[in-house]
């Protein structure tokens, strides 16, 4: 798909969400829809959709043992096994999954292909790993930090994270490090898709849309905190109402809040039906979550069914006379 079309679809969709929320939240009587109904619906769709997708994957048989082997497999005792890259035990698999989930180990091995003097050469490139790690951890901290708006009393770890994130004490309200890092990381991931010709060629609207959407979520959140402020006490009244299942709709919350909520809700709704499901998918990747016991143990294809065998002996018994008549040699007369 042409890059202009892809980008246009992604940007257009995000703009549509923003405009719907901007005008919708200003219509008297529609605020509860944007402030209460939409977040609840989005949350239910998110959890339901996520479970549905994971269960669908769980129901799919893995006919072959297909762990990716990036190191020496377990073999003769005097050959050293690479336990993390080619695990043969559950513990090894847990170790491999741990580093994959928390540190994106496979992205760390990313290489860059270049032409030099007519030869293709591969060199290590850590930028995508750094960008991805920065983005995911910033987003995680931001999500946990948001618990301060949903909980009374606020748990200690949320307060601690808040203090740590605002440790620079720049401005009032204090600047959060993750706010800046999130936008920087997203900008990198976005520009990478546009600037690298190979990335641009394979990028689809579904690649640009989540980046733009999350960027706008971050941008509206930053606007709301530092520039077009809203009354945080009213906001918390609404959010705590949602979390305690006694929803209330306080008056006088600025439109920017509803745009932020609409974007976040869109992300929640979109999540289970998109590439963002790699969050669940990483745990269900047979390439990574299977131990390499391919030859050590007997693995039977789970969809094998009992096959009726018709042996040669039976065949000969069935057709012995006809075979003899045609001059075909038989094993037993």
């Amino acid at each position: 798909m042409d890059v202009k079309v892809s980008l246009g679809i992604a940007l257009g969709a995000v703009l549509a969400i923003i405009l719907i929320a901007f005008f919708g939240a200003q219509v008297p009587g529609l605020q509860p829809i944007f402030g209460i109904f939409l977040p609840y619906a989005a949350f239910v769709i998110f959890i339901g959709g996520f479970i549905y997708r994971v269960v669908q994957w769980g129901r799919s048989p893995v006919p072959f043992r297909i762990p990716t082997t990036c190191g020496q497999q377990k073999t003769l005792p005097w050959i050293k096994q690479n336990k993390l890259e080619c695990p043969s035990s559950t513990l090894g698999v847990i170790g491999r999954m741990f580093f994959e989930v928390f540190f994106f180990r496979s992205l760390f091995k990313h290489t860059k292909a270049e032409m030099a003097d007519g030869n293709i050469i591969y060199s290590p490139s850590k930028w995508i790993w750094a960008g991805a790690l920065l983005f995911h951890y910033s987003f995680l901290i931001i999500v946990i930090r948001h618990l301060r708006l949903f909980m009374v009393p606020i748990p200690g770890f949320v307060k601690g994270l808040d203090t740590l994130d605002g440790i620079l004490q720049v401005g009032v309200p204090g600047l959060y490090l993750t706010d800046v890092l999130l936008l920087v990381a997203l900008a990198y991931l976005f520009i990478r898709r546009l600037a690298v010709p190979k990335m641009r060629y394979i990028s689809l609207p579904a690649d640009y849309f989540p980046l733009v959407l999350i960027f706008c979520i971050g941008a509206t959140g930053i606007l709301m905190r530092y520039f077009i402020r809203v009354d945080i006490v009213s906001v918390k009244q609404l959010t705590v109402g949602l979390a305690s299942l006694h929803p209330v709709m306080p008056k006088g919350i600025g439109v920017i809040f509803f745009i932020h909520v609409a974007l976040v809700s869109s992300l929640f709704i979109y999540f289970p039906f998109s590439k963002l499901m790699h969050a669940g998918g990483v745990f269900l990747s047979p390439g990574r979550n299977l131990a390499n016991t391919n030859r050590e143990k007997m693995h039977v294809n789970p969809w094998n069914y009992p096959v009726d065998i018709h042996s040669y002996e039976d065949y000969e018994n069935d057709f012995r006379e006809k075979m003899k008549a045609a001059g075909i040699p038989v094993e037993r007369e």
Partner: protein
Amino acid sequence: MYDAGKIIIGLVIFVVFLTFAFWMDAGKAVPPPKPKLNTPVIMKMPKAERKCVESKEFMRTEHMQLLDTWRNEALREGNTEYINTNGKMYIVSLQNTCMKCHSNKKDFCDKCHDYAGVKPYCWRCHFVKGQMKNWE
């Protein structure tokens, strides 16, 4: 489902994490904080004069920026006068102007700050008379 045990454990952990706030808040009716405006100084004022330096709506969302500007103006520029939108002049001072009326930090400032989990660092320098202990 293949490996149903492991997958279901994973999904349960996922759902419990996501709904953490729901479990902790379940059944709680949390009334929003009502900062108290009944300090002796405010009560002594005639009703018509009970006004903050700016409007209530402005103060709700912008007081932190106003105070930040005040701090910079007073300490860095030496400008200790603030003219509000109605043209009235105030002396730039958290302790002598703001807290002359709002002398009840516990029932005024802290009410909303605690509710929203905000810990402003005003109180590293400023204090309320007679409340220097148990600070922060």
